[in-house]
């Protein structure tokens, strides 16, 4: 029985826009156990990235604001800390780290990667510069960067995209965090490089028993690596369960639609009609209502159902499927 590492409860984040307040994350609750790999899937604008940025307290404020919810990391209530407080900075990078899609924007172009890595460590850990450099080079070696001693003196622009993303993984792992959040970390890379990196990330988190949250729109990636997945739609988690539960018995019509959108030879695609709803002035009914092929009369009348447990680890937010009406 593994221990609970991260608990997110009722997390709600809003953005002020000109048209009104957009609720990008709506009462999201989920958890991650130690050493577990959790996939968060959904289409663009569903709030999957904003949720993770909220957990890390990296939401630009203004216009964004976390208006409700709780985030516990290993017993510590993270939202009690101010965004830029010393405590929060101690958590970020040291206890949970994030790997973003575009490594070029996360790396300082004017600093060698070795120095950038050492700085992360000297900030969080009490170690000497020399030791920090040694550990950086060791970490670079662990992410299969050839000749790491030499590459540590390279600037980011001297490396290929795949190589830079390896550096990002190495940097995330430096302080041996308990949780890594990979936000579309391999999306921008070519298929064969993507495969290299995913295998690498997988082996690294396995080795150190680091928990991993994979945010992606690629169902293939979560199918291969994740233990459990959360499907997000219009700012909320609408279905959650182990990968096998979701694939063998998808319950929410959106999840079913999403799985049918994947091209398979000899099978006709059945795309989901229409497009996701606006996040401003949400009506309070099920957000998938307009596109749902199985809506009932009650769906129009009743407020949206919360994520409800079904069996095993499986829960869904579809009232019709839960047998409520």
């Amino acid at each position, binding site marked *: 029985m593994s221990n609970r590492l991260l608990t997110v409860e009722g997390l709600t984040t809003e953005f002020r826009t*000109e048209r009104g307040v957009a609720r990008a994350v709506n009462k999201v609750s989920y958890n991650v156990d130690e050493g577990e790999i959790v996939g968060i899937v959904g289409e663009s604008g569903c709030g999957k990235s904003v949720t993770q940025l909220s957990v890390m307290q990296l939401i630009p404020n203004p216009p964004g604001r976390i208006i409700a919810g709780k985030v516990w990391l290993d017993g510590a209530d993270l939202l009690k800390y101010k965004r830029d407080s010393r405590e929060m900075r101690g958590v970020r990078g040291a206890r949970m780290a994030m790997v973003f899609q575009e490594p070029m924007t996360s790396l300082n172009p004017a600093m060698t990667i070795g120095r950038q890595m050492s700085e992360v460590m000297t900030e969080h850990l009490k170690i000497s510069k020399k030791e920090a450099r040694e550990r950086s080079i060791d970490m670079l070696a662990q992410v299969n960067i050839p000749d790491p001693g030499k590459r540590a003196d390279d600037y980011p622009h001297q490396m290929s995209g795949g190589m830079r993303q390896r550096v990002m993984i190495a940097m995330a792992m430096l302080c041996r965090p308990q949780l890594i959040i990979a936000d579309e970390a391999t999306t921008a890379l070519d298929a064969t490089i993507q495969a290299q990196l995913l295998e690498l990330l997988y082996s690294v988190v396995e080795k150190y028993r680091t928990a991993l949250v994979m945010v992606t729109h690629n169902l293939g990636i979560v199918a291969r690596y994740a233990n459990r997945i959360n499907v997000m739609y219009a700012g909320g988690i609408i279905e959650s369960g182990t990968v096998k539960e979701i694939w063998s018995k998808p319950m929410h019509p959106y999840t079913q639609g999403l799985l049918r959108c994947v091209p398979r030879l000899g099978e006709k695609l059945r795309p989901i009609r229409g497009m996701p709803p606006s996040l401003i002035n949400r009506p309070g009914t099920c957000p998938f209502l307009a596109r749902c092929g199985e809506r009932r009369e009650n769906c129009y009348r009743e407020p949206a159902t919360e994520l409800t447990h079904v069996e095993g680890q499986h829960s869904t937010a579809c009232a019709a499927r839960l047998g409520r009406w």
Partner: protein
Amino acid sequence: MDTCSNDVTFNDATFNDVIEEELLPPVNELKRFIKVFFKRKVVIAGFALIVLILIVAALADIIAPFDPYEQDLHNTLANPNGANILGTDALGRDLLSRVIHGTRVALAVGVSTVLVSAAVGTIIGLIAGYAEGFLQSVIMRLTDALMAIPPLILAIIVATILNVGVPGVVLAMAITLLPGYIRLINGQVMSLKQNDYVLAAETMGAKSTRVLLRHILPNCLSPLIVQMTMMMGVSILTEASLSFLGLGIKPPTAAWGSLAYDGYKYLLTKPLLSIVPGLAVMALAFSFNMVGDGLRDALDPKLRGTSS
């Protein structure tokens, strides 16, 4: 529409299923523009000042208490008083009336300079950016050469050679402003050319003129408008400098620069004579720069179609 006999995978039933009526909620571009534009107080101030000056220029004949050219040799260099609010000049002409009429000259010269230079500069810039290669190199090196000459000196030289009054001043100043437009448009064209919609037009067989006029030019307009507004301020300043040096608008026409020059001889005794026209130049140039700044924010293509 013919019905499709190939029912292996696709048929009309699924087809009609997909027809979409929904659009993204419309964004009111004008509303957004106004909101962003009037966000900063200095921009509002600049805009208000320009509107005020435009009104003054339009109604100069009504507002001005005296004829700006009427001399009164019994009442020269008068201090401000009930009749002559700002006093009179060495020939007894009412300073306030002359400054008020000066707005017309300033605006007329500014607008025509900006229009001439923008039109010519845009055409040259479009050609340079679209042609690339040798022609572009030649045009751009010439532009660089033109830029290397201090604008005021260039304007003085051209104005002296032409020596034909207002049109000469306009032309001289337009030449000094040209490089700015050429470089701006050249850069715009170079980057817009990489856009897929330009490539798409080429794959359709669109002629160069069509690509330039329908696809590239309309997308250059925002930065062009900003540049033109900014250059209004610059040309008003340059015109004043030229007139101050006696090369611009010739007396007795009431131009702010020449007013300042006339008053400059009495700077220690009657400072208002040169300070008031100087302030007018400053205020107008400043207003145009502020409005240009506001336009730059409001026309930022990154904000188009967004709501924040």
